[in-house]
């Protein structure tokens, strides 16, 4: 954490809308090597639940949007060793960190990690059976959430499934604490969106099939599985 540039982190909330993408990339470029710890303590239970709910089968073509430090991507490689696993992150440093980490563990995997802006995905239409994204939408503004969902729909085959993990909003104390963090460091924390996501996902051409909540310590998560409508 010593190399963190605080001037990048401490950014005013009223600038959130215009600059989140660029700021988020810079912040996550800097925290790439220490990010796995927070994922281990707060996200691993939800990752397991999401994988179980996703119905991903060995041999599928799977895309993870915003791989972060690769905790979920490693789980995807274990579950889908004979399939194709593609992942990306907006931060090139984070994507490179994850590539090195998972390549050591899975040297022969059919996988590709890239640096990609989720609003402009470099994949052909209907390339994937499943798309997974974990704790991403909190960091995107309203327009970018809709652009990202449209791109996910485009790259999913008809009938394919989107599995989303969100930070839960079912604990008032956690929600209030998160609001404070989000105001202080919006590019890292973003803001909570899980109450509004089911509506936005359906608006983008999906049907919500599963919706479950879980908790790891004080940290609430919500998992949605949605099917792409034709």
């Amino acid at each position, binding site marked *: 954490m010593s190399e963190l540039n605080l001037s990048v982190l401490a950014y005013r909330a009223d600038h959130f809308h215009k600059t989140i993408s660029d700021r988020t990339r810079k912040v996550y470029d800097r925290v790439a090597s220490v990010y796995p710890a927070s994922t281990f303590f707060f996200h691993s239970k939800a990752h397991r639940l999401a994988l179980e709910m996703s119905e991903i089968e060995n041999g599928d*073509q799977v895309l993870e949007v915003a791989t972060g430090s690769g905790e979920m991507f490693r789980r995807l490689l274990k579950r889908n060793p004979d399939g*194709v696993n*593609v992942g*990306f992150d*907006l931060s*090139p440093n984070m*994507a*490179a960190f994850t*590539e*090195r980490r998972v*390549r050591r563990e899975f040297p022969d995997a*059919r996988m*590709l*990690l*890239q*640096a*990609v*802006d989720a609003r*402009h*995905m*470099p*994949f*052909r239409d209907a*390339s994937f059976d499943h798309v997974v994204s974990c704790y991403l939408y909190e960091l995107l503004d309203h327009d970018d959430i809709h652009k990202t969902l449209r791109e996910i729909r485009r790259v999913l085959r008809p009938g394919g499934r989107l599995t989303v993990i969100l930070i839960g909003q079912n604990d008032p104390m956690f929600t209030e604490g998160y609001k404070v963090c989000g105001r202080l460091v919006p590019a890292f924390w973003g803001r909570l969106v899980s109450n509004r996501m089911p509506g936005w996902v359906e608006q983008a051409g999906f049907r919500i099939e599963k919706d479950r909540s879980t908790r790891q310590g004080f940290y609430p998560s919500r998992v949605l599985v949605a099917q792409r409508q034709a």
Partner: protein
Amino acid sequence: MAISKELLEILVCPLCKATVEMKPNGSGLKCVQCHRVYPIRDDIPVMLVEEAKVED
């Protein structure tokens, strides 16, 4: 960097969605339509429009 044929087949230019081809020296992926070259750094294709350079 080597990208398998099956993975290269699903990749397109993020801007114009046209086919991309690996440059002969493996340094990047070039769009056949807009001629943007997306660099490959640390074995990672950087498919960000702002990082691409247009080449003839």
